[in-house]
């Protein structure tokens, strides 16, 4: 397979189409707009549909309808637009529909939105956070696969850097197992049969159908499915130097990519630092973080917000090691979450300080 130099937004769009996505709906907002532009061009070429929705509310609704017919469908926005979509995402989880949702975020302030959800009721969706374009391509394929396997929305988190960086990409289709058939998909054909198909957050069978259950039981079933999904979706993480690191840094997405470089540089100088980069944000790779923390004396979390993933790292470490927060907000005038703090020297200084602090205060390992 040949490799091609391309921008992240185009690579993600092409990967989605290659993964079989045939319906996309969106409302412009940078840097999600860039993906929408590519989908508007690519989908008609393969007989698919790209809709310019009048709002994020309608974009997610259109994608919901398309998903209900068994079509591989996707939508997305940035964090603000995702906020508008939360009500629908919750309902789509309860209706057990596969859907891929992009959050081409501005900074990393949407971690809680992504992993906890801002919608109502008990629901979860898988969250994938690539650090570079080749990984984004692989995870785009994986997102559609996971969505179909679990009949649940999957969120792919990117940012302005991921949308605009150009990298050499291998567009080979990821080798993923086959997905289940979709006998539930609406096509009208079961009308008049006495048990016509129904897709509803309130239940998945009509009255009189042998599989009909009352609403409360339906929600319990969804809860059971969520537990199975949390246990069944493989948590992914990249670990560097965690065998001997005294300080383990945890970071995801674009900052994770920067820190991968910085940690390797510092290790080259002989400093005992390591990195865990979560690739699935939900389910969180708690085992990888806990294993690294077991060896280390302290853990430090870097993210471009005021401390959100920090919660999940602390839950993974469960008090066995101190977990400090060394990230923070970083914005320039663009408003696109382009972070002046994402600078090798500055990141390096933060880690050195955290390492000094570890040496001064942490109990011997």
């Amino acid at each position, binding site marked *: 397979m040949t490799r091609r130099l391309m921008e992240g937004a185009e690579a993600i769009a092409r990967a989605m189409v290659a993964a079989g996505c*045939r*319906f996309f*709906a969106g409302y412009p907002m940078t840097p999600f707009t860039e993906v929408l532009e590519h989908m508007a061009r690519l989908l008609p070429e393969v007989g698919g*549909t790209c*809709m310019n*929705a*009048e*709002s994020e*509310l*309608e974009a*997610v*609704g*259109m*994608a*919901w*309808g*398309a*998903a*209900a*017919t068994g*079509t591989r*469908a996707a939508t997305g926005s940035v964090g603000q637009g995702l906020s508008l979509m939360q*009500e*629908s995402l919750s*309902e789509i989880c309860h*209706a057990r529909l596969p859907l891929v949702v992009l959050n081409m975020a501005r900074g990393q302030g949407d971690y809680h939105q992504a992993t906890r959800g801002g919608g109502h009721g008990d629901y979860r969706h898988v969250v994938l956070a690539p650090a570079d374009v080749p990984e984004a391509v692989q995870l785009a394929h994986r997102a559609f696969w996971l969505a179909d396997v679990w009949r649940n929305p999957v969120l792919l988190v990117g940012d302005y850097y991921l949308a605009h960086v150009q990298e050499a990409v291998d567009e080979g289709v990821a080798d993923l197992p086959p997905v289940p058939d979709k006998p539930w998909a*609406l*096509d*009208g*054909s*079961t*009308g*008049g*049969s*006495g048990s*016509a*198909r*129904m*897709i*509803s*957050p*309130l*239940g998945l*069978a*009509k*009255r*009189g159908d042998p599989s*009909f259950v009352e609403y409360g039981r339906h929600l319990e079933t969804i809860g059971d499915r969520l537990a199975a999904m949390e246990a069944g979706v493989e948590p992914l993480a990249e670990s560097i130097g965690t065998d001997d690191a005294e300080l383990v840094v945890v970071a995801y997405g674009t900052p994770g990519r920067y820190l991968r470089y910085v940690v390797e540089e510092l290790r080259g100088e002989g400093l005992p630092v390591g990195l865990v980069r979560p690739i699935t944000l939900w389910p969180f790779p708690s085992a990888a973080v806990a294993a690294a923390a077991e060896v280390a004396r302290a853990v430090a979390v870097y993210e471009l917000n005021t401390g959100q993933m920090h919660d999940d790292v602390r839950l993974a470490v469960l008090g066995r090691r101190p977990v400090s927060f060394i990230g923070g907000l970083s914005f320039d005038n663009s408003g696109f979450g382009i972070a002046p703090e994402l600078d090798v020297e500055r990141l390096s200084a933060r880690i050195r300080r955290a390492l000094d602090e570890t040496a001064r205060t942490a109990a011997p390992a």
Partner: protein
Amino acid sequence: MSDGPTIRGSVPVEPPLPPGRLVDDFVPSLILEGEHSLCPGCGEPVAMRSVVETVEELELTQRAIAVFGIGCYTAFSGNLDVESLQALHGRAPSLATGVKRTRPGTVVFTVQGDGDMVNEGLAEVLHAAARAERITCVLLNNGVFGETGGHMTATTVLGQRTKNTLEGRDADRHGFPILIADLVARLDGVAFVARGSVSSAGDVARSRRMLRRAFELQVAGAGFTFVELLTMCPTGWFVDTAEAPGYLRDKLAEVHRIGVLKDTGATTSAARSGGGVAT
């Protein structure tokens, strides 16, 4: 009405009528269970029956997909023998768009109330209309949020008492009603708009012709089709059940005028059989 006890099988009714049929005796086609939990005198079951019987008459049963909004009528989403998709409040035309665009061979209709469509979902229905989506949006308009217990919606007529307009809807304080069918009819991309009622057998028959025309035009790919049906809500209107059809005619229908507002496909007199032009 008699004050005597109501006993199934011997409902006291005055004046005497021919032997009535209880819900258990007769279940309309494509409705799974004849009993429903909606209030006595509600117009929505009649409207739902009209919709699905039209689907069956046109032999669209195995092509139809219903997209339901949220309101009292949502009880029917699990009680119709046609495929159905449950949307959020206001969002049904968006979901219907996704369904129709990915399954162009299906016949897609939405069922929404006035709170759902004209309050929460005004943007969705107008944009779906302007996009000429080949779907049929059915509005069950009773001028109140029936499920919440009778509160003002965007279609509540001036002077109408609701739980949050206790002295009647006053334009200065609560604004004017939106005549949604009139609004939709003005948009390019719209093939058919009609407003009917279920307040009498004659109105139901006329509404059925409107629905039939809308579905026929959807099948022909003519564009967006829209049928508004005025329905009784004696509970939300705080009137006696028996007075509700008259209240509908005297209050709602005086503002939301019944008739065919637009029929771009009309080339024969038969095409106008849904009724006279409203204005």
